[in-house]
């Protein structure tokens, strides 16, 4: 199992889409085995930031990154690091549930193991069950593991995607607005799940929903695009402090709903 102790240390991270800069000199120390929320208005670079944590950002053509992201003492952007390897230890859950449509529920969860390493059948079944249990989905799908993954409801699909991400035993789990396509009850279940996983994984969750951030996160980062349209980190601290006693005026304005 995970038992990860690593956090994510971000140093002077900037990111571009072609000539457009999306992120400027972000410094941040994401604590291990805790939940960190990234909040801020649309277009402030929240998603870009976490997509730099598993080198997903650079899969977009002409996108590039400058700065350091240190994981387990290794800068994931140093030239000898293989981005594919990094993604095996940093899982990601996306805005819209994206189970593989041609695969069964079982195969969806097993996909990470099947497609990346040699494995034994028994080991596979075990790890699929464990992952589905961790994602609080096992009881709902244990009798229909052979059914298609896309036949599930939206909330179940998202938990399936979480199970899929957990199956490869990542230390870090990135969640990019995981509830934005879900109804309130399904969102609540995901939040509950995040609370369950807290302590075993370093979780970074991007969210539009400030209540959600205050409910699930130990630490909160507030980001904002400046006059120049480039996203910057405004404030990062314990969730309680950020929400009740923000150091920055802009954080206070955002949280009290004066803009954004």
């Amino acid at each position, binding site marked *: 199992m995970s038992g990860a102790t690593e956090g994510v240390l971000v140093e002077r991270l900037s990111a571009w889409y072609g000539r457009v800069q999306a992120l400027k000199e972000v410094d941040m120390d994401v604590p291990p085995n805790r939940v960190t929320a990234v909040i801020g208005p649309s277009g402030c670079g929240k998603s870009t930031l976490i997509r730099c944590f598993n080198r997903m950002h650079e899969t977009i053509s002409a996108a590039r990154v400058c700065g350091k992201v240190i994981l387990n003492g290794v800068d994931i952007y140093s030239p000898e690091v293989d981005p*594919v390897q990094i993604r095996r230890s940093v899982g990601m859950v996306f805005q819209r549930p*994206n189970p593989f*449509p041609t695969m069964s529920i079982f195969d969806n969860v097993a996909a990470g193991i099947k497609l990346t390493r040699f494995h034994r059948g028994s080991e596979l079944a075990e790890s699929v069950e464990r992952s589905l249990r961790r994602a609080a989905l096992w009881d709902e799908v244990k009798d229909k593991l052979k059914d298609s993954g896309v036949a599930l409801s939206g909330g179940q699909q998202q938990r399936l995607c979480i199970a899929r991400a957990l199956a490869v035993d990542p230390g870090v789990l990135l969640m990019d607005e995981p509830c934005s396509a879900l109804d309130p009850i399904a969102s609540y279940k995901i939040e509950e799940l995040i609370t369950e996983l807290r302590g075993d994984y370093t979780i970074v969750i991007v969210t539009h929903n400030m209540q959600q951030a205050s409910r699930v996160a130990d630490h909160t980062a507030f980001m904002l695009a400046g006059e120049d349209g480039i996203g910057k980190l405004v404030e990062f601290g314990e969730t309680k402090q950020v929400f009740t006693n923000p150091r920055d005026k802009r954080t206070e304005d955002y949280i009290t709903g004066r803009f954004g």
Partner: protein
Amino acid sequence: MIVRSYGWRKAKSLVMIALVVACVGVALVPLVSILAYVTVRGATALNFAFLTQLPKPVGETGGGMANAIVGTLILLGLACCVSLPIGIFSGVHLAEYGKGWFSKLVRFITDVLTGVPSITVGIFVYTVIVLPMRSFSAIAGGIALGIIMVPTVTKTTEEMLRMVPRSLREGAWALGVPRWRTIVSVVIPTAAGGIVTGILLAVARVAGETAPLLFTALGNRFWHSGLGQPIAALPLQVFAYAISPYDDWQAQAWAGAFVLTAMILIVSIVVRIVARGRHITTR
């Protein structure tokens, strides 16, 4: 005023609908009459012997086109052997890695090839394969048909792969699945229904090609004796029999046309079934 203008609009709408329906009718007339004519003329000449026997020598009645039916199937098989690897791999290249000038060139050539008359392909294969081999052959025919299929297969493969949403690829990449493995295990299976549909349509299209076979496969009145030898094909046999002066040969030409049409119809039905299955899986 309001009431009158509404009546006017309704009248215009009626006229337009009538026009559209009439055009559909006109378009259907030749289609339906071809099918009906082929069916009536072909089905009456069709019998068990036609499907199982060789052509009889001139002067004798009876016999069939079994060799041509088998020949067409062999030619289509060879055409698939040639076109599917090239077409599918090119399509994957264009969809997944196609960014530079090379891909632009490939795309352009593919578009041009789609429009090349099939007889041109025939001449090309005649010059490049038949002349050096000093023999018309099944292989030459299969290659000619295959070359005609390649652009269609390439294009449909590329288009179907492009329809697979980026989010699925990202889902696989995020698990640490390498890019090639994502293509093989996630992207291609998702697009498989569409790719198969495109391939079957390409097969149906070349099944009726006659011109490129005239000087590659040539035709044969007997069972083929190896892939290096001339081979019979339905369209060739239909052509030869249709222009003959004998009534029973002409009747057999109709039967051949009917069998060919039926084969293509069956392929189209298979396409429909495959396409429907695909909609269920991707919802």
